[in-house]
């Protein structure tokens, strides 16, 4: 631990192996057993202690190699200890207390090993990477950038986007060749990664949407305002340079890009997560503006509300100002501009079985009942057992065809109404125009419902019921039956 603390940032390039040296150098295995602390950082890799230099777990082949050799070494040490225990066990020179201590130490060591193994393996998973992404402070800054080290996936977003930067830096494709061997295994499947990242984007977007209300409403001027251009926002990038804001498809490309910003970005340690407490107060807060003129999130709007992170920008822009190109493969009606929204919707699509007689569908029963309680004449509608298309035609006494018909006629309207009831569905509203949405869109929708209701009510009596079929009602039976009257 002490040795770790002594490491300065400049040395960080080789630091990941330092604990190993320390352990390795100790002759007495018991002594090293007592020194569990060096491994501690593995359990909380983002523990934000500036002095701990963490053997990086991100997918950096060099780091990975270091980690593995560390594990190997560690296993050897544990073996040594146990061997000594076995040797001494025959002579019974240890007091019982000592033996117990040793056992505890071995236990702790093994636990440490397991943790290390898991976290090493975990660094291969994109989801882990992304969660580390999220745990980062939303905006990077210069001081932070100094600390930013080996973990390129943890690079905070910046949007100091300038055309010049592009020319200064090597294009990502150049590096792609270089790192192909390394990157292919890990982040080849960009689509999966996109999905995962974007799902988190949704949450980020929500945060951004709440920004105006949650007390984080910074006064204008207290933050650095950035505005990315449309092309940049819509580029399928998931890794962004914390300095210039340039986006990359692959983390490796970003890392190579970072080298272009100076030597300090070349070491893996420098890419480690910077200590938040140390740097937070110095950092100029960054906020983002939507490039769409007239949008509330655009800096020219009089009630401008900035977006918090670059992810918020991306999601906001796509949801509010882009075509909804992703269509649900189940219902073929709902469309989304953000892939993650579609995925979330598809999880629930078809399960909106809580129907109202007005045609509105709900994902949750309590929402339906609140709706029914609110409006006169609206009734919970039961899902028809028969397939809808057949029941539409047949004049069955069972009554559930009207809701089905209405539902299709209501069409696009439906989801305006239902988007308020489920976080999965309110993808549209909350970032940009939540106020408007609640006040006007919903109101309109209610009017619409009333219109439908009238139709519904009048439709009921006109239904024909073929109920009398097969009734024995001939005259002779009629006469004969009279005898059987019980006169009570």
């Amino acid at each position, binding site marked *: 631990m002490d040795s770790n603390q002594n490491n300065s940032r400049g040395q960080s390039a080789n630091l990941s192996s330092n604990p190993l040296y320390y352990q390795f150098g100790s002759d007495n295995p018991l002594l090293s057993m007592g020194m569990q602390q060096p491994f501690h950082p593995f359990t909380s890799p983002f523990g934000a202690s500036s002095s701990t230099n963490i053997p990086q777990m991100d997918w950096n082949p060099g780091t990975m190699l270091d980690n593995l050799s560390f594990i190997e070494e560690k296993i050897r040490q544990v073996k040594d200890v146990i061997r000594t225990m076995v040797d001494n066990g025959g002579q019974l020179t240890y007091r019982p207390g000592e033996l117990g201590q040793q056992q505890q130490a071995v236990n702790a060591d093994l636990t440490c090993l397991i943790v290390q193994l898991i976290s090493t393996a975990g660094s291969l998973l994109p989801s882990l990477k992304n969660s580390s992404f999220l745990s980062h402070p939303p905006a990077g800054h210069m001081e932070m950038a100094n600390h930013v080290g080996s973990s390129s996936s943890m690079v905070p977003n910046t949007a100091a986007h300038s055309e010049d930067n592009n020319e200064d830096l090597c294009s990502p494709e150049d590096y792609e060749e270089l790192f192909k061997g390394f990157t292919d295994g890990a982040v080849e499947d960009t689509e999966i990664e996109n999905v995962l990242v974007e799902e988190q984007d949704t949450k980020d977007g929500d945060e951004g949407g709440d920004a105006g209300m949650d007390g984080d409403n910074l006064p204008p001027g207290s933050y650095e305002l950035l505005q990315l251009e449309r092309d940049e926002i819509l580029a399928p990038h998931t890794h962004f340079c914390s300095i210039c804001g340039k986006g990359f498809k692959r983390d490796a490309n970003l890392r190579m890009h970072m080298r272009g910003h100076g030597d300090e970005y070349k070491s893996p340690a420098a890419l480690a997560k910077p200590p938040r407490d140390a740097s937070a107060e110095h950092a100029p807060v960054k906020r983002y503006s939507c490039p769409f003129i007239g949008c509330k999130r655009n800096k020219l709007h009089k009630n401008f509300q900035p977006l918090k992170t670059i992810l918020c920008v991306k999601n906001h822009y796509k949801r509010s100002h882009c075509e909804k190109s992703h269509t649900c493969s189940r219902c073929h009606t709902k469309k989304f501009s953000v892939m993650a929204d579609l995925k979330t919707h598809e999880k629930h699509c078809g399960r909106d079985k809580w129907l109202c007689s007005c045609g509105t569908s709900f994902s949750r029963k309590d929402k339906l009942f609140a709706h029914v309680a609110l409006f006169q004449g609206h009734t919970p509608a*039961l899902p028809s057992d028969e397939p809808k298309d057949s029941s539409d035609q047949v004049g069955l006494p069972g009554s559930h065809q009207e809701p089905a018909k209405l539902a299709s006629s209501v069409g696009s309207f439906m989801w305006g109404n239902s988007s308020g009831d489920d976080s999965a569905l309110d993808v549209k509203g909350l970032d940009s125009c939540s106020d408007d949405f609640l006040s006007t869109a919903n109101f309109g929708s209610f009017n619409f419902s009333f219109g439908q209701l009238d139709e519904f009510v009048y439709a009921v009596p006109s239904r024909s019921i073929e109920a009398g079929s097969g009734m024995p009602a001939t005259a002779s039976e009629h006469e004969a039956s009279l005898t059987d009257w019980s006169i009570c």
Partner: protein
Amino acid sequence: MKRSPPLPAQHVRGGNIVISTPPLLGRSHQESMAMTSHRQPKRRRFSPAPASPPLDLLADELLFLVLDRVAAADPRALKSFALASRACHAAESRHRRVLRPLRAELLPAALARYPSATSLDLSLCARVTDAALSAVSAASPSNLRAVDLSRSSGFGAAGLAALSKASPDLVDLDLSNGVDLGDVAAAEVGRVRRLQRLSLSRCKPLTDMGLGCVAVGCPDLRELSLKWCLGLTDLGLKLLAHKCKKLRTLDLSYVMISKNSFPAIMKLPNLEVLTLVGCTGIDDDALGSLEKDCNKTLQVLDISHCQNATEAGVSSIVKSIPNLSELNLSYCCPITPSMVSSFHRIPNLQILKLEGCKFMADGLKSIGRSCGSVRELSLSKCSGVTDAELSFVVSRLNNLLKLDITCCRNITDVSIASITSSCTSLTSLRMESCAHVSSEGLRLIGKHCCHLEELDLTDNDLDDEGLKAIARCSKLSSLKVGICLKISDEGLTHIGKACPELRDIDLYRCGGISDDGVTQLAQGCTKLESINLSYCTDITDRSLMALSKCAKLNTLEIRGCPRVSSCGIAEVAMGCRLLSKLDIKKCFEINDVGMLYISQFSHSLRQINLSYCSVTDIGLLSLSSICGLQNMTIIHLAGITPNGLIAALMVCGGLTKVKLNAAFKSMMPPHMLRNVEARGCVFQWINKPYKVELEPCDVWKQQSRDVLVR
């Protein structure tokens, strides 16, 4: 009818023939005259016209008046009336309001014949199909206001849809026991906009969705039962409370109601009766969640069997319902003085039911202090009821009219003395199995409480002196003195002479009585409707002959009276034409002859127990000609063969429940059984050992006491 004893059989048979043979369909004048003259004695009382001019001349209004009187005297006479003449037939058709068909298939004809019927009671039809219900819509404009489907099965949403469409004015719909009815059916019910009274009890598949449909569709609901609707949750109940503001009576027994919807229900502005039996979700939180004086209309609250309610909850709920008049806390929680003292907040409390409760020290006393207005108190099966506390309570409750101290086994003559001295206006006293009360104590009851109408002294030490005292209660209508071994004919004679209003008497296992006593009783109590003489082994046909004079008798239980024979049964069948329930188990002498009489005369018979009788296939087949027969128990009948049994079952279309020897199950063709079951009949296969000998009453009583001690 009872005034023409010699040929009643012919009369009834004649009535049947009228329909089936062509000559009488024409209703020749002579025939109709014969019928009218037959009814002459009755008609002369109400109608100025003697027998000679045909009834056709009378105005409808007069005929209707006659009809009402006739129906009031003997409902069965309406049939004869309708057959008297064309005019009578038409008048009866137009005047009848209530239909109770025996077979649902006859609904179209019935509705066509009785256009002004407003109430359709299908309780005799075990199986009502959707097609039968849609006949209602086939019939021209239906005036039906009430439909009772509580005993029927076999219909579903489609039938209800037809019903709701055809009867837009339906006000009262009973769908109890529709264990297959779910949301779809409820949605159809929701189309009956004017519905005011609805029972959906035991519609177990019902969920919030269906209830929502009903709540939205029937805003006028005043009375609703959702008992045993286990699929309901707070959501649906909240919606109900929100939509049906006119609800007055609501039964939510065994429903999963919790504190989330309880306040909403309690805030219903017109709620008067709320039943919450066995609602485990009603706990102290729920009961305490209401503000003071939250509901000023509620009069009856039943939270019996709510195991999670305790003293604290009960104390807090009474604050919110100041106008409560009836409170049922049976099997709910221990009764403590502090809880009872909170009842001073409900000054109008009149009925307090605390059955099966455990009384803490002074709990009962505080009832006397806090509930002075109570008129009806039930302490049945309570533990902790002592002489001192009970005496104190009754001394304070001067208005007490009904008292139930069944199985309060610790009380003695002391309590009885104070009850009889303090509550002289008691109309009902139930004290079964108060073993420590002596004969002398029981005599006090008759001496002081002469307003009694209902008295239950089952399994007590009552003797003839006690009965003699009880005979002072001239308004006595129900007397239960079963397992009172000391009473004899002498005591019964006193009752027979002094209690003309007696309708129901229970003499179960009164081994000391014989024919003389029963004869005296039957002669005095001509209004008798129900008598239980089971295991009174000395009873013979003479008793039944006497009882046959009680024309209103509908329930006769003579189980274990081995000296009764078919002759007695024949007399009863001919005399008691309203007989609907007959138990002749272990009357070994009764054979097919008795059954022939029963089938001939007892057309109202609904339920019969024939176990151990000497009845054979013939008797069983003749019994099955009784259309309304619903319930049969046929166990250990030596003369029954599987073929005879199945024939009887196939003929008897209205059966709903049949108990049979388990041995028969394998002997009867399964498809036949399935056929019978498809008509709505349920089989119970009994596997009891064959046991002929009857223990003497005292041995039996001692055995039951021994069980108690153990």
